[in-house]
C-alpha cells in the first residue's frame, strides 16, 4: 500500500477483499447482528466489524474469529436496508485473513473450509468419506479414533442406508477431465493472486 493520509485499511479491504467496496455503505443499524443465527458466538457482529474497518483496526479485524462464525444463511443479506452482501464480505475477510496466515490459531471452520476445498480440488468432486475422516483425525491418530468411535452410530447408520461408501477411499468420484480441471483452477488462482495481492 502506498502511504496516504486517508484510512489505508478501508482502502486495503476495498481493493483486496471480496465485495469489500461495500463496507463504507454500512449505516450501523445492527439488523445483521440481530439476524445472525450464531449471533451469541461472535466477538464482533458484522456492523461492528465494518466500523472497525473504517476506524483502521486492521489487526483486531483480521485476527478476529467473527467472520468464521458465518453459516452462509444469508439472513443478514436479505434484511440489510442498504443491501450490503454481508455474507460475502464476511467470507472475503475470512479468506483474506487466511491468505495472510493470521486467522485465529486452530480455528475449526478455517480448518474444515481448507480441508473441503483441497478435497474437491483433488478430483473435482467432494469425497465425503475422506472429508469426515479429515475432521475426526485433525488432532492426531488416537484422538481421531476416539472421535470416529463417538460418531460410529452415525457412520454405521449412513453405511447401512447406502449413503456412505467405504470404497470412496480407493475409487473416488471425480471429473474425467482432471488435467483440464486442474489447469483451470491453477490459472484462476494466478489471476486471483494478481487481482488481489497479499499486503
Amino acid at each position, binding site marked *: 500500500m502506498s502511504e496516504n493520509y486517508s484510512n489505508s485499511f478501508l482502502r486495503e479491504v476495498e481493493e483486496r477483499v471480496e465485495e469489500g467496496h461495500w463496507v463504507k455503505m454500512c449505516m450501523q443499524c445492527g439488523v445483521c447482528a440481530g439476524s445472525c443465527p450464531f449471533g451469541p458466538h461472535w466477538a464482533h457482529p458484522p456492523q461492528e466489524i465494518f466500523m472497525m474497518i473504517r476506524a483502521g483496526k486492521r489487526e483486531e479485524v483480521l485476527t478476529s474469529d467473527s467472520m468464521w462464525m458465518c453459516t452462509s444463511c444469508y439472513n443478514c443479506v436479505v434484511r440489510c436496508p442498504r443491501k450490503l452482501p454481508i455474507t460475502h464480505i464476511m467470507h472475503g475477510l475470512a*479468506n483474506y485473513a*487466511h491468505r495472510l496466515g493470521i486467522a485465529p490459531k486452530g480455528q475449526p471452520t478455517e480448518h474444515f473450509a481448507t480441508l473441503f*476445498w483441497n478435497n474437491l480440488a483433488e478430483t473435482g468432486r467432494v469425497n465425503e468419506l475422506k472429508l469426515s475422516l479429515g475432521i475426526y483425525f485433525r488432532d492426531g491418530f488416537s484422538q481421531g479414533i476416539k472421535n470416529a468411535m463417538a460418531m460410529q452410530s452415525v457412520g454405521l447408520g449412513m453405511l447401512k442406508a447406502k*449413503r456412505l461408501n467405504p470404497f470412496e477411499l480407493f475409487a473416488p468420484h471425480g471429473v474425467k477431465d482432471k488435467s483440464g480441471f486442474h489447469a483451470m483452477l491453477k490459472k484462476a488462482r494466478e489471476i486471483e493472486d494478481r*487481482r488481489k495481492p497479499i499486503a
Partner: protein
Amino acid sequence: MAKKTYSFYPGCSSQTKASSFNYLTSTKSMCNLLDIELKEVPDWNCCGASIGYAEGGELPRITLSARNIALSEQANPGMDMVATCAACWLSTRESKERMDHNTQMRNDANEALKEAGLVYQGTQNVRHMAEVLVEDLGFDELKKGVKNPLRDLKIAGYVGCQTNRPFGLAGESFENPVYLDNIIEAMGGEAVPYDQKVTCCGGALAFSEPEKSQKQIKDIIESAYDHGAEMIVTPCPLCQANVEIYQGEINKRYGTKFNIPVAYYSQLITVAYGGSAQDAGLDSQLIRATKLEEIAKK
C-alpha cells in the same frame, strides 16, 4: 402434460452412495412420474458450496461454476440448468450473476476456463427443482396427478436457508415462504404451521462447530414436534442430513427423545404419485418414515 426437458446438475451429495443418494433416487422417480426429462450435465464438478471461500477465494470459486455452466451450455443448449441441491443452485446462480454483471470477472473466468477448452456464454437460466415444480408445472397441475394422497400425514415444511435466501422463489417472502407448504397440501398432506421454517441448521458449520449447530437443529425439531408434525420435509440436502443424522447426538446432549423422519419433497411427490417406498428412496432414511412407507404403493 407436455414433456419438459432440463439440463440437470445433481451435485456431489447426490452421487451413488453419497449422503443424499435418496434425493437423487426420488428425484429421478418424481421426474419420471411428472414426465420431466433430465439430461445430466456431462463431467460436472463440485460448486465449492458455501464453505469453499476460505481456501478457494473469489475467482477460483466462480470458475468452478463457470465450468459447469459452460459444459451445460455445450451439451444441452436451449435448456434451463436445474439443480436439486440448495448450495449447488445458490453457488451456480450467484456465479452467473457475478459474471453477467462484471465484465472483468467474466473475462477472468473465461481466461481460466480456456485451460479446460471451455467458454462461458451465460445463455442458460440457473434454477432449482422447486422452481420447476412451482413455476413450470404449478400447484394445480401437481395436484391433478396425485393417485395416492398423503391423507392424515402432518408435515413440517422446513425450507431452511439457501433455497430461500438470498434468491428464493419468485414472489415468496424470505420470512415465511409458502411454496413447500403448498406442495405438501397439493400431495394431500397437512402442512403444520410452526415458527422455525426458515431457521438455519448451521449448514457446513455442523461439522466445525457441532455444539452451536446442534442448538439450531434442536430448535427446529422441537418446534416441529410442538406443532404436531409427524415428519419434516425439506428441499435441501444439507438441511436433510443435519436435521436427520444428529438427532441421536442432540438426544445425548439435551436429554430429548427426538426420532422424527426428515425427507425430501421429491420423496413425498413420488409416493403421492403412486411410486413405491423404494422408488422414493425411503429405504435410505436413517430414521424410517414409517407412515409415508405405509401410504406408499406396495
